[in-house]
């Protein structure tokens, strides 16, 4: 249990998707103009990451990694399909996003109205594929660990985008040098937020 909490906290604050790895920067920069829409996108990211990371974990464990196919027949023990992981992961992500969109549309139209427009955007969000690839690289031991990593990364992403959106709403009223307006100042603020987040480094539960 403790290791789950540890992974969760670590992926929110220390290995934050945006401040430590710059994943999902495209939508982060494009959608962070108001707090409301950025919160919507953030929630959609949490949602998709919490689903795709565990699914990709299972795919990786039972289909792709070296010797994973032994559950079919022992003679597959030396088959290693890891080189297929990029194409598998992106296919899973694209289809999961589609599936999630359809399920939400069917069961909760209010949720669909608030998240719907963001879901197609998310299929090509680097944070989602990045989540699966980090999961593969770090070799989490159980499904629970992978899920907790996915959830934590999503929450970290939400924190970052809501934070920058709030700052951008306020900075509209300040006198930023003309060439820095818009994109430039957003980059620099994100950098400063990243430095602030570095104080969490070394936290261990």
């Amino acid at each position, binding site marked *: 249990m403790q290791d789950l909490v540890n992974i969760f906290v670590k992926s929110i604050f220390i290995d934050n998707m945006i401040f430590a790895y710059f994943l999902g920067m495209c939508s982060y920069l494009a959608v962070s103009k108001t707090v409301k829409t950025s919160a919507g996108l953030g929630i959609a990211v949490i949602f998709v990451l919490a689903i795709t990371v565990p699914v990709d974990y299972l795919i990786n464990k039972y289909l792709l990694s070296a010797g994973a196919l032994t559950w079919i027949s022992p003679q597959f023990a030396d088959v290693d399909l890891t080189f297929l992981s990029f*194409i598998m992961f992106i296919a899973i992500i694209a289809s999961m996003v589609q599936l999630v969109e359809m399920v939400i549309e069917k069961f909760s139209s209010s949720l669909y109205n608030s998240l719907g427009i963001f879901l197609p955007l998310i299929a090509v969000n680097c944070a989602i594929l990045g989540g699966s690839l980090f999961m593969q690289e770090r070799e989490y031991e159980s499904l629970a660990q992978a899920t907790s990593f996915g959830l934590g990364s999503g929450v970290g992403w939400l924190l970052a985008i809501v934070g920058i959106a709030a700052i951008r709403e306020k900075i509209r009223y300040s006198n930023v040098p003309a060439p820095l307006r818009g994109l430039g100042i957003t980059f620099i603020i994100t950098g400063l937020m990243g430095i602030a987040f570095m104080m969490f480094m070394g936290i261990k539960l």
Partner: protein
Amino acid sequence: MSTEKVKREPLFSTKYRKLLTIPIGKNNPITVQVLGVCSALAVTVKLEPAFVMALSVVVVLTIANVLISLLRNGIPPRIRIIVQLVVIAALVILVDQVLKAFAYDVSKQLSVFVGLIITNCIIMGRLEAFAMANKPWDSFLDGLGNAAGYGVILIIVAFFRELLGSGTIWGIQVIPQGFYDFGYKDNGLMILPPMALIVVGVIIWVQRSRNKELIEEN
């Protein structure tokens, strides 16, 4: 197809040269179009991985652009995103395997970021916006130009981060030992991730103050 065109228009006419040069400067994918920032920053601590990353993107984007442009009349519009993703993913797998075989150390340093070329918005963006509507040679130049624009920013950022952060360029020490004896210290902050963002911010600042028409409203 291209031989016909060669007769009508020389391969490096002004129009073609523009396709190549505009994305490097005035319409740079990173600093102006804000595409592909995701994978750009994390690999810029040292010059070598940044260069390899830039080269990989050049290869993937140019080939993908040409391929999609050749296929553009055969792709049904409804499934074009999937076709594009498959082409990109296949190319990225190739690049990844080549890197693992010939440059294992760099490939380890780049870790997941080679895979993330798949979701690099520059590639999807160029395929969707340019290759789907243009001839192969135009698409080739457009892909090369945009990937080069991406690479240039990557290399500039990596140059400053390596120079100020570790006092080396491409692993070779350039700050004389005498400076260190005198009390000069490498700026450890430059190695940390947030500084990449600030360096890009400064590059945007410099570019926009020289190019007034790029300045944004608010």
